[in-house]
């Protein structure tokens, strides 16, 4: 399976993602933001980081970069597009995903392990993961998911909420909300579930020497889903 990780100026999780994808069997290639075409891929990943220094709004400038038209075309033709952290912000800024990631409610940069509850397994990203709660890492200043009430109703009705912040038992209540995100939302899909954006970093949890291995479950499922 072939994957492509797009590198923007200021991306800083691109190489971690490259290591993770290769570890679980993807033939990964790195693609520069100023290119026009993406080599043949089964999966495109927009990695975490601070593209264009988070100028204007996080992800807004990357959302207008040269490579983005190819990403949008690929996504609209049903291709799998995964955006992690800043990648999630870019996906909302391109309108491939609804809503926006605002500054964290208490104005703090949050860097810690969290638990997330998988809300929908009828998709390629979580289909065969046996666990319902994963321990993953977050590191962001703008992860406070927001959308209009109408939009929220629509994403709930369409099963587009992918993962929510919770405790180790899966209680996704306000007490376990690190950043003020609406409904504890940590990740969402588009309507067709081929696009996933999420704040947590599965690529940081793929080795026992790191702080956990639940990220491995994510990538094992992803490669098996093809």
């Amino acid at each position, binding site marked *: 399976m072939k994957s492509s990780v797009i590198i923007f100026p200021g991306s800083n999780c691109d190489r971690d993602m490259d290591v993770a994808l290769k570890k679980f069997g993807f033939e990964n290639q790195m693609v520069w933001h100023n290119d026009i075409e993406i080599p043949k891929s089964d999966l495109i990943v927009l990695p975490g980081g601070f593209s264009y220094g988070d100028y204007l709004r996080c992800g807004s400038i990357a959302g*207008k970069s040269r490579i983005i038209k190819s990403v949008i075309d690929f996504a609209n033709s049903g291709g799998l597009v995964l955006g992690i952290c800043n990648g999630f912000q870019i996906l*909302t*800024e391109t309108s491939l995903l609804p809503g*926006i990631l*605002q*500054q964290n*409610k208490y104005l703090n940069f949050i860097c810690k392990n969290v638990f997330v509850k998988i809300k929908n397994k009828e998709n390629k990203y979580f289909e065969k993961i046996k666990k319902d709660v994963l321990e993953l890492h977050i590191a962001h200043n703008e992860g406070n998911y*927001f959308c209009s009430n109408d*939009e929220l109703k629509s994403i709930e009705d369409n099963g587009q909420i992918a993962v929510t912040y919770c405790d180790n038992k899966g209680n996704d209540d306000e007490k376990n909300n690190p950043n*003020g995100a609406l409904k504890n939302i940590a990740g969402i899909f588009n309507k067709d579930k081929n696009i996933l954006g999420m704040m947590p970093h599965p690529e940081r949890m793929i080795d026992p020497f790191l702080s956990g291995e639940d990220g491995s479950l994510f990538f094992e499922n992803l490669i098996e889903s093809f």
Partner: protein
Amino acid sequence: MKVKVIVTLKNGVLDPQGKAIQQTLNGMTFDNVSEVRQGKYFDIEINESDESKAKSQVEEMCKKLLANLVIEDYRIL
């Protein structure tokens, strides 16, 4: 010509920075400040002498890049 744009958060959208500024002002003896909303200001120099054309182009810029209409409104001055 120069076109000025102000982008502000829509009413009802949480503005934690504005809130922090308000609380700081209150602590500095400006205790009659009841709300602060923070926004962005753009000075755009555009090579276009027709004012209405320039403003309609800036309007496009606002919709496509300068403001995110999910949470922000824009005003062209």
